[in-house]
Every structure is written in C-alpha cells, then in structure tokens.
C-alpha cells in the first residue's frame, strides 16, 4: 500500500497492514523509532505486521532478535531511556510470562525511580486472544498481567482504524505502553483514514443508544455489534480501547444516561478486566442504575484447542443478544452461556 494511497483518504486495509502502516509512518516521522523482536525484520513479522520495514528503514532500526524476550524487552527499556522510541514485538502475549519483569518492574517504575528525570517511551506489542486453533498456551488475552501497574498504559484496538491510530499514539506516548493486538483481527479488513488521530485513554462510542451501555474491547467489539443488531435494542456500544487508564468519563456518562451496564470481554469470568469497569461504575452510579450491571465473559477454563470447542468458548452474538434482552426485561443478571448448558461452576 503506497503512502499516497493511504493519505488520499479512507481505504480498506487489513488490521495487520494497519499495524505495519502505523509503524512505517512513525518511523518516517521520527528517526528514533525502531522495532525489534523475533523474525520481525527479514521475515517481516510472523503475522506480517512489519511488512516493508526492513527494506525501508534498514537493519539498524529494524532488527531480528534471538528468542530472548526478557533481554529484548529490557533492551527496549534502556534504548527508550536513552533517546530511542523502541517498539518490540512479543509474538504471543503468553511469552510476556518470560519477560514480565522488564515491563512492569523496570519500565513502569523507571520514571518514578528517577524522580521524573527520565521517561520510557517504549511500546510492547503482543498478539493475543483465541479463535485460531493455537491451543491453551497461545490463545489468552491476559490483560490482568499488566493491569495493576501504575506507570504502564494498556491499549487494545478493535479494528484497522484503531490499530493504526492507537499504535501511532502509543509510539508517540512518552511512557511505556502495552499494546494488545487481537490476533484473530489481523486478517480483517476495515476502512482507515491515516489522518485520524486517537488518544490513549479515550474510549470510542461506536453506537449511541439509550437502553443499555455495553462496554467491550478487542475482538468482542464486532461480536457485540452483531449481538446488538440481533437484539433490536437501543444499545450504546463503547469500545474501551484503553484499559489503563480507562475512560471513566465516557463510561460514566453513558451509564448515567442508560442506567444499565454490561461489560463484554474475552477474559475469563475470574480475574477479567471487566470487573474493574463494573465495580468502579457501580460505586459511582449506584443510585442511577436501573438493572443489575453484569459481565459477559469466557468461562474459567484454559482455551480449548478443538475447533468445535474453541468456537463455543467466547460468547456468541446470540448469547449476548439473549443476555441483553433478558436483562432489559427483568433487570436481573442473566446466565452465562455455560450456565445455560449446565456446565462449569
């Protein structure tokens, strides 16, 4: 995709191309932006999210690394402190399990521990989520690993446009940003306007409505759209987009209007990010709520491999539509899909 074409206005490109385009545009705009990770250079990324970068920006700024997530994440910390804006790729979010220290205990605390004398403008990109048959060690979203970390920001786009605009914002951000890319979206096409800026910390109201506020993120956003259409309800759909710091203003405003809150997430029932949204909103707006606020999540199970199971793992549009409709009618928290099936705890 030529720069020209992208600049000329709205075009349809794939989510993974939006990532590559954002990286390229940032690298053009700022010499200090560099990227490294496993097979991001010569091979242009295991998910082709760095297409063209090595050719255009050369081997100093686009580097393949050994299989050493701790070292290269940490190298990003040092490079960021010393004037670069590194973007590193963690191929699958789970691999952060061998590198977490550098992100949450070093990067996120560096500014505090230097009395504000340094900043760490780095981005850690990681593909995440289920749906592609990668099995239980390669399919989780795992926002919880990075969510209680003052000093770190956590972002998750839901379409090509937000992938592009938020990644640019993340690279420009002076602080460390964890950038979660729902893997199943890489191949999805969507319109993209490269002149559109998005801010970290701002949610996107995708549909406005007055019956229910649905807060969602990542790959669940599309499913929510479908569910809302199915339900026929007048739903306000919010793509949270940033988990830390999340857009309290936007969510509170919406729930003040609708009086109903549903959070739809890919994370499991226990420990998922949606509890935070629900808890904070309920604490603030308790008396304005017209119905029990609730979460629609995946069950507390490792992500199953078999296609037949994995397809059932995340709540479907039909599940969500049912849950919204039930809540609208009786104000109670409807059952999760597996409770209907009589499964799980």
């Amino acid at each position, binding site marked *: 995709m030529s720069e020209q074409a992208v600049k000329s206005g709205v075009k349809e490109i794939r989510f993974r191309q939006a990532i590559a385009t954002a990286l390229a545009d940032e690298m053009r705009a700022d010499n200090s932006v560099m990227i490294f990770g496993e097979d991001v250079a010569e*091979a242009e990324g295991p998910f082709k999210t760095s297409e063209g970068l090595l050719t255009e920006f050369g081997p100093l700024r686009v580097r393949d690394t050994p299989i050493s997530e701790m070292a290269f994440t940490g190298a990003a910390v040092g490079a960021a402190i010393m004037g670069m804006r590194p973007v590193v790729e963690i191929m699958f979010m789970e691999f952060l399990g061998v590198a977490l220290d550098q992100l949450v205990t070093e990067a996120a605390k560096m500014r505090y521990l230097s009395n504000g004398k340094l900043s760490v403008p780095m981005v850690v990109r990681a593909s995440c989520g289920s749906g592609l048959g*990668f099995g239980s060690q390669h399919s989780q979203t795992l926002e919880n690993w990075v969510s209680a970390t003052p000093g770190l920001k956590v972002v998750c786009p839901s379409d090509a446009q937000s992938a592009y605009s938020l990644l640019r914002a993340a690279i420009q951000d002076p602080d460390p940003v964890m950038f979660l890319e729902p893997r199943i979206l890489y191949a999805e096409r969507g319109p993209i306007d490269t002149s559109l800026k998005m801010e970290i910390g701002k949610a996107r109201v995708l549909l406005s409505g007055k019956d229910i506020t649905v807060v969602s993120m990542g790959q669940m956003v599309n499913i929510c759209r479908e569910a809302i259409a199915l339900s026929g309800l007048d739903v306000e759909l919010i793509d949270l987009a940033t988990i830390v710091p999340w857009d309290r203003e936007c969510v509170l405003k919406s729930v003040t209007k609708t009086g109903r809150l549903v959070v739809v997430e890919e994370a499991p029932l226990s420990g998922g990010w949606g509890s935070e949204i629900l808890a904070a909103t309920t604490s603030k707006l308790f008396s304005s709520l017209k119905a029990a606020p609730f979460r629609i999540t995946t069950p507390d199970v490792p992500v199953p*491999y078999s296609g037949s199971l994995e397809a*059932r793992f995340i709540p479907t549009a039909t599940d969500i539509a049912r849950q919204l409709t039930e809540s609208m009618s009786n104000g109670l928290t409807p059952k999760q899909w597996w409770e209907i099936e009589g499964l799980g705890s």
Partner: protein
Amino acid sequence: MSAEILRRSEIRDSKVAQYERMIEIRTLEEQINELFASGEIRGTTHLCIGQEALAVGLASVLRPTDIVSATYRGHGIALALGLSPEAVLGEIMGKTVGCCGGVGGSMHLSNMELGLLPTSAIIGGGMPVAAGAALSFQTRGTDDVAVAVFGDGATNIGAFHETLNLAAIWNLPVIFICDNNVYGEYSRINVTTPIEDLHYRADSYAMPHFEIDGMDIDVVRAGVQKAVDHARAGHGPTFIEAKTYRFSGHSRADLALYRPEGELEKWKERDPIKVTENKLIKEKLMDAAQIEKCKEDSLKVIKGVVEFCKSAPNPSLASMFQNIYTDRSAK
C-alpha cells in the same frame, strides 16, 4: 502390557523396527502437512521431517519410567515413545481419540504411561520441568532419568541457562538434548547466536557435553545411551547437541524460502531415512524391496488412521470444563 508400552518395546533392540518407526513418523508428518494444506486441520503445526533419527534413537534407549519433556515440534518423539498415530493425529485434529481428547492440540502431546510430559509451546518451558522430574528421581532414590529435548533457538532463552545451572549444581539425572536443526522459526542460527557448536555452552556449568550426528540413529542411540548411563549411575547431567536439519518450514504456512540455496539439498543427502536404509541394506537386515514395502504399508496404515480420525467425534462441550482442577471427590 498396554498397546503403547508394546509399541515402545518394539523399537528397543530391532533396527528394522526402529526404521519402521522412522518411516511411520515421516509418513504421518507428510499426511499432516497435506491435511493442513487442504484446510482439513486448522491452527498450526510443526513438522519434524528430517529429525526422525533423533526421535526414534532416543526413545529406543529410554525406559517407560524415564521422563521426556519435548516441544511443539514433538510429533516424532511422541510416536517414537509409543503413542499411536491415532492418538497423535487425533489430537492434532482436535478429536476425542487424541491423546488429550482434542483439547490440547498439535503442540501438546502427552502420555504419562510412556513418560511423555505434555509438550510445551513455550520456548524453554519444558526444560526446568524435566529437571524437576529428575529432582524427584534423585530425591526418591530411583535410577530413572529425565530428558529435555529442545531446539537450537531455545539455547538463547533464560530458562535454558537457569536450568542447566540448576541441574549441574544439584547433579540431577537429566539429559539435555539440543536438536540443532539450524533454524529457529525463520531465522538461521547465525543471526541469533554468536557460536555454532551449542554444546560448548555446557562448559558454563561444568557439565559434560558432546556433539552427535543426529541423522544417524545408531550414533544417536550410542550418544544418548552414554548420557543415560552416566545419569543413572548418579553422575549427573549431560548436554548433547544433535546436528539435524529441519527439512520443512517452521510451521504450516512457512515455505522456508529464506534458506541459502543448496542448503536443504545438501542436508537431504544425509536424510536420516536414507542413512538408515543404506545401513540396513549394508548390514543385510532389509533389502530394497522390503524397504519399499515398509513405506507402502506405512502409507496404507496412516491413510487408515487419517480416515479414522476424520470420522472420530469432536469432543463434548463438557470436556472444555474438565481436568482443570483435580476432582478430589473422585480420588
């Protein structure tokens, strides 16, 4: 004796059976490749074509009470250790007949009766686990051993370093087998690793180490046997680097166009299947016709396995919720 244990015992002493098992692995891997290509399997898979001698060689030397931790590139090792092709392919196809009932997948084969821990999809993830199995053997005073198989790329991950050091300082009965197939994903080893002969890294831990030709099953057997004897006798860990070559791409979508010209062809001259055939013929254990027949038979069997697995049921929804915690009431 279970069918799996029987399969395991077959390759213990018979060179012909070892060869047949190598052919079985090759045949199944090729079928898997086709099934992925035709879209009949989803997800990802990592073939071990070219690395069969290592798989069968090491399995033939171990006891079923020994423990093996291997990786996502583990179909060959699983078959060699005795898993049935149905258990392997069934798992890869996500069917109930798979060794994990279909919830694990291509990267997670296991069979505790055969000593195969669930293979890990995390680079280096299986290494400390193998050391831990060895720790149990040592503490309980058995003479079983643990084996960790991992790739060349894995020698750059922190867990590798920590595990070798721990195994050395505790003198654990564990054998580290680095399957150096020259590539880690799409990167040739020289792009990621400043040395070529990885076994020298064991010097950092004062651990005995040596290199073997991973294309020659007899060499593999002798090398692994030496390390196993050493460990069983209480002398601690050994690091073995098996020089092999990944004949296929890294995973299903990879055509491996990044290889230097002629490299694959050169290594194919040392195809472990060919190397073994030549020996068997020379040693008059098989002739060309028998070899041909073995391949044909294997293909027939495996095609049957493919059909069997295709028609096997998908896991029940309930199986998604099982085996997460131990049901204590059931114990």
